């Protein structure tokens, strides 16, 4: 059977053709393909690692952002509270100042009223005195012309005047 005895012609051509094929493909074929594919797979690995890193970074940034947000909110609440307190304090202070001022004004007014009353009384008194002197003068002039009971009348007048003086004061 010539099935299991290798034929020289085919051996010869196989060595040449397969050798040539191997040379060509090993030189221009497979290394180009495998190196490109390996480059690509390393790029994919790197991209995946980068993506993971960025993901972690994003998560960190988000947490930081959240923290900043809560901090800001806290601070905002604090400032608001402070502002309200200060406002209240200012209002209270203003109210106090106003009320004390009002008290002072009222007291001043009272004092002034009293002083004016005093001076009015004094004026009235001196007016009254002048009037009474005038009246007395007129009466005296008339009485003295009659001269009936001048002495008696004068004495009475003096007495009356002194007693009214006491009563007025």
């Amino acid at each position, binding site marked *: 059977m010539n*099935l299991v005895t290798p034929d020289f012609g085919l051996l010869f051509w196989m060595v040449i053709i*397969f050798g040539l094929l191997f040379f060509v493909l090993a030189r221009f074929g497979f290394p180009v393909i495998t190196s490109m*594919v390996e480059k690509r797979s390393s790029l994919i690995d790197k991209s995946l690692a980068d993506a993971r890193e960025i993901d972690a970074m994003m998560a960190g940034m988000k947490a930081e952002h959240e923290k900043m947000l809560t901090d800001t909110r806290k601070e905002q609440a604090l400032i608001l509270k402070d502002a309200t307190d200060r406002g209240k304090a200012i209002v209270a202070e203003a109210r106090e100042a106003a009320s004390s001022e009002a008290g002072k004004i009222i007291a001043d007014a009272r004092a002034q009223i009293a002083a004016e009353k005093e001076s009015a009384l004094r004026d009235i008194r001196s007016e009254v005195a002048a009037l009474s002197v005038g009246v007395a003068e007129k009466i005296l002039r008339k009485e003295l012309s009659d001269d009936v009971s001048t002495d008696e009348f004068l004495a009475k007048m003096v007495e009356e005047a002194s007693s009214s003086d006491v009563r007025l004061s």
Partner: protein
Amino acid sequence: MAILVPARGAEASGDEPVDIGGIIFSHIGDSYEWHITDIGGHAIAIPLPVIVRSRTSGWHCFMSSRIGHGASWEGFHVASSGDNEGKLVEDVGGEEVRPLDISITKNVASLMFSSLLLALLVLLTARWYRLHDSSREAPRGLAAAMEPLIMMIHNMARENIGEDDYRKYSPYLCTAFLFILLNNFLGIIPIFPGGANLTGNIAVTMVLAICTFLAVNLFGNKHYYKEIFLPDVPGFLKPIMPVIEVFSAIVKPISLTIRLFANMLAGHIMILAMVCIIFIMAKYGPVLFGSMTAVSVLFGLFLDLLECLVAFIQAYVFTMLSSIYIGLSRQKE
């Protein structure tokens, strides 16, 4: 291959029994012309160049159509019997002498065709990677089809040979794998450019196995040779081990040769036998003929599918074993 059978079957459909052995062996064997089919009793065949060197008259080169049907040309004819049956012989003093024969036979033509095809496929794929930036663009078309096959072998080389050396061996393993795969599939295809039983030919598988043998033994490291000649075994085994190891190193390529050759050959023979059932049954009446034809077609289809599987598995096994042998020769301490 199968397409050739009808014509031959028709020729033999007279009273004489169908020569199954002849049909099968003419299909799995080599020939000086590439027989495609018979139309109306005329053989359609591509004549191929015959290149022979006679011991007496030197080189001869002529087309195989000169020696068709037992004709003789320049003293050469195809022997019809004897040790050299089917081979070209020279008449020297009434004796048939086999000249040095490097003819472009059917197998050689098929080998040239499939090698050109493979070179084209791989170089076109490489061209795609040269012209495109593979980090920005996914491969398309041919490159997308070839990349997984090539990378499968490349990664197998990395696993079996190791990170340090695999780049040196990966091109050989890729070439061997794609060569075997392509020729296995071409062998299953029955119509013209296919149909040659190349990987079922022992000369082809032998050359492939010898390439692996050389890759293993020419570049084996110190550790590998120490394991063969000075293995770390008890004293009384020291003289025996080198013999066993050398024997095992020689048996490895032989097993590679036989495994691929026998698997592909057996597959082809099974498919051909299934198809031949049709022509054997032709004379047993329409019922038997019809039912057996159905059976034969079904089994033929099944075997064809099985052979597709085997074509891949055998290419893969050959490459994997080669890479494991190479890996053993590059093992570190």
